[in-house]
C-alpha cells in the first residue's frame, strides 16, 4: 500500500535535527553575537526593575504616564501595578515588563532604519514585503520552534522570539509614514538646498513620527502577547502563572495571571498611544 503511513515516513524530523545541529556547531559565534546584546539589555532592565523599590517604580510610572498622556492614565497605571503587587505577581510583572521593553528597544533599533531604507528604495521594500507578510501570518506559537532550535530555551530566547514576532509593524509604519510625507514639502526642501540626510531628518522623519509612533504602539502590543506565550519555553514572567494554572487546572492562578496581563496591556497601550499623539501636536524647537 502506498498510503501506509506506518511503513514509509519521511525522516524530516531527523533531517531538521541534523541541520540545526550543523547550524549551531558551525555558527555558534554568530548566534552568540545575536544573543549577547539582547541578554545584556534584558538583564540590565530586568535587574533595574527588580531592584527598584515598588514605591520608586510607581512614582516613576505615574510621572511617565502623566507626561505622555494625562494624570488619569497615571492613576490607572499606579492602581494596576498596585493590584498586581497585591496579587503576588509583582516579580513576574517586572520580568514581563523588562522583556517587553528590551524587545521594543531592539525592534526600534532595527526596525526604524529598515523602514527608512524601505521608504527610499522600491527594490528593498518589494523584497522585504513577502518576508514581513510571512512574519505576520505565522502564528505566534510557531515562532518558538526555530528560536528554541537555535537559541535553546529561557528568557533570552523568549525575547529573541518576541523581537522577531513584533518587528513587522514598526518597519511597515516607518516605511508608510515616510512615504506619506507630502511630495511638495520634500520638493521644497530640495529647492532650498537640503541634502538627502537633511531631508530625512528635518522633514520626512518628523512628519512621519506620528505614524512611526503608531507602529511602536502595535509593536509593543504584539511583543506583550508574545512575551506571554514565550513562557512556554521557560521565559518566565506573567505567562508562567497562566501556563502553570492551565497545566495543573488551577483556574484561579491562570485567572489572576490573565487579568494582570490584560491590565498591563491596557497601561502600555494608553501610554504608547499618547506618545504618538503628543508628539504630533506639540510644537517642536527647530
Amino acid at each position, binding site marked *: 500500500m502506498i498510503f501506509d503511513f506506518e511503513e514509509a515516513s519521511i525522516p524530516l524530523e531527523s533531517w531538521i535535527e541534523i541541520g540545526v545541529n550543523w547550524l549551531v556547531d558551525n555558527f555558534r559565534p554568530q548566534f552568540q553575537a545575536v544573543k549577547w546584546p539582547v541578554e545584556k539589555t534584558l538583564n540590565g532592565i530586568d535587574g533595574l526593575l527588580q531592584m527598584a523599590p515598588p514605591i520608586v517604580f510607581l512614582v516613576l510610572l505615574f510621572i511617565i504616564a502623566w507626561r505622555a498622556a494625562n494624570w488619569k492614565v497615571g492613576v490607572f497605571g499606579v492602581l494596576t501595578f498596585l493590584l498586581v503587587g497585591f496579587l503576588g505577581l509583582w516579580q513576574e510583572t517586572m520580568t514581563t515588563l523588562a522583556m517587553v521593553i528590551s524587545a521594543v528597544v531592539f525592534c526600534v533599533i532595527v526596525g526604524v532604519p529598515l523602514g527608512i531604507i524601505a521608504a527610499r528604495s522600491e527594490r528593498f521594500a518589494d523584497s522585504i514585503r513577502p518576508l514581513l507578510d510571512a512574519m505576520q501570518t505565522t502564528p505566534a506559537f510557531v515562532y518558538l520552534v526555530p528560536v528554541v532550535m537555535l537559541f535553546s530555551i529561557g528568557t533570552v530566547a523568549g525575547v529573541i522570539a518576541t523581537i522577531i514576532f513584533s518587528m513587522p509593524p514598526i518597519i511597515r509604519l516607518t516605511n508608510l509614514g515616510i512615504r506619506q510625507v*507630502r511630495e511638495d*514639502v520634500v*520638493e521644497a526642501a*530640495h529647492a532650498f538646498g537640503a541634502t538627502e540626510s537633511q531631508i530625512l531628518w528635518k522633514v520626512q522623519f518628523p512628519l512621519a513620527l506620528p505614524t512611526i509612533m503608531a507602529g511602536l504602539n502595535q509593536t509593543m502590543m504584539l511583543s506583550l502577547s508574545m512575551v506571554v506565550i514565550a513562557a512556554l519555553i521557560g521565559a518566565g514572567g506573567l505567562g508562567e502563572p497562566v501556563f502553570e494554572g492551565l497545566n495543573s487546572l488551577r483556574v484561579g492562578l491562570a485567572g489572576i495571571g490573565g487579568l494582570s496581563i490584560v491590565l498591563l496591556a491596557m497601561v502600555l497601550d494608553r501610554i504608547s498611544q499618547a506618545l504618538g499623539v503628543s508628539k504630533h501636536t506639540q510644537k*517642536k524647537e527647530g
Partner: protein
Amino acid sequence: MTEKVVVKDLFKIFGHDPKSGLKLIEEGLDKEQIFEKTGLTVGVREASFTVNAGEIFVVMGLSGSGKSTLVRMLNRLIEPTAGEVFLDGENITKMNRKSLIDMRRHKMSMVFQSFALMPHLTVLQNASFGLDISGLGKQEREERAMNALDQVGLKPYADSLPQELSGGMQQRVGLARALAQDPDILLMDEAFSALDPLIRSEMQDELLKLQEISERTVIFISHDLHEAMRIGDRIAMMEGGRIVQVGTPDEILKNPADKYVKSFFRGVDPTTVFSAKDVARKSQLTLRWHKGEGAPRAALEQLREEDREFGYVIDKQRKFMGVVSTDSLESAMARDENTLDAALLDNVEPVPAETPLQEILAVVRRYEFPVPVVDEDNVYLGVISKNAFLRTLEAGVPETGAGTA
C-alpha cells in the same frame, strides 16, 4: 541691462530613453505624435530665452504646456535632457552636487503653488527653514527670518503653525521663507493661483512693492493673463513645451505670434489691460494751428470738404491745441474774431496716453466728439470715439492699426 539667466536650447523629455525622443523632435514630430509613437512625454522643447537682472519674467501657458518643468530645470529640481542654463555666466547644468546645493541655498529660492510649508514647524521656523538647512546659527537665522516675516506683514504670527493661517497668509510665509534666503532669483510657480482673486491681487501688489524696495530677478509662472500683464516686465508664452513668444506685455498683446497666443486674450477684460494710447485712432481731421487772420474760414472749408463736424487743432510740433467745430468756427466768424484761438471749444481736456481704459469710459461719455489723446509732451496721438471704445470692449482687443496708426 545685465543678463541674469540665459537658457539655451533646453529640452526635457519624460520617460525611458529620453534621447530617442530628441531625435524624433529633430525629425519635426510634435508632442502628441511622439507620445503616440514612443510613450515619451515632451515636457519642454528647445527653450531659449534670457532673463535680465531685476525684471519680473512671467512664463505663461495653458496647463501642461511645460511651465513648471521649465522653471524646475533652472534649479535642477528636474534634470534637463539637453541644453544649458547659465546663471551669471555659470553653467548650472554642469554643476556638481555640492555647487548645485550651494546655488539653491544662496542664489535661487522658490515659492510654490501649494505653499509647501512644513506643518510641524512654526511660521518662524518655516521662514528660517532654508537658513537652517544652510547651517546658520539659530540667532542669526531667526533674526533674518523675522525680518522677512516683517516684510510680508506676518511678524505677529511668528509662533503660529502654518495650518492656523489663511491661504493668503500661508503663501506670505512661503514668500518670507524665500526672501529670508536673500536670493538673487525668485522662482514662483503659480505662487498666487491657489488664492482667491482679491487676495491674489493683494499678493501681486505685495510682490511689486517688494520689487520697489529691493530689485530681484523674479521668474513667475502663471496661467492667468491678467496676472501676467499686471506684474510682468516681459512674458514668455508657452505651448506644448515650446516657447512661442517672448516680449513685453504690450508687444505680445499687439502682435501675438500665433492663434494660440491670441486665444489667451479672449475673455480678458480689455479695460484692465489697455490704456488710452492703445485705442486712440487718427481717424479725425487735424487742423494746423496758426495765428494768422482768416484761419477759421479755411478751417471751416476743410471741415465741410471732408464732411466733418469737428477738427483737432495741432501746432507744428504736433502738440495738441484744442478742438473746433463747424458751429464754433461759424460763431467766431460772426463775432468777427478771425483766429482759430477764438473758435476753440471750452473745457476740452485731452486724455493722457497711459490712462487705463477703465477710467476713460466716463470721459468718452462726457464729450459729444471723440476724445483727444496726448502723450506726456502733449503731442496729439489720436482720438477715442465712443464707437471705437465699445468695439474694443466687445472684441477684447484693439482693432488692428490701433495705437500708432
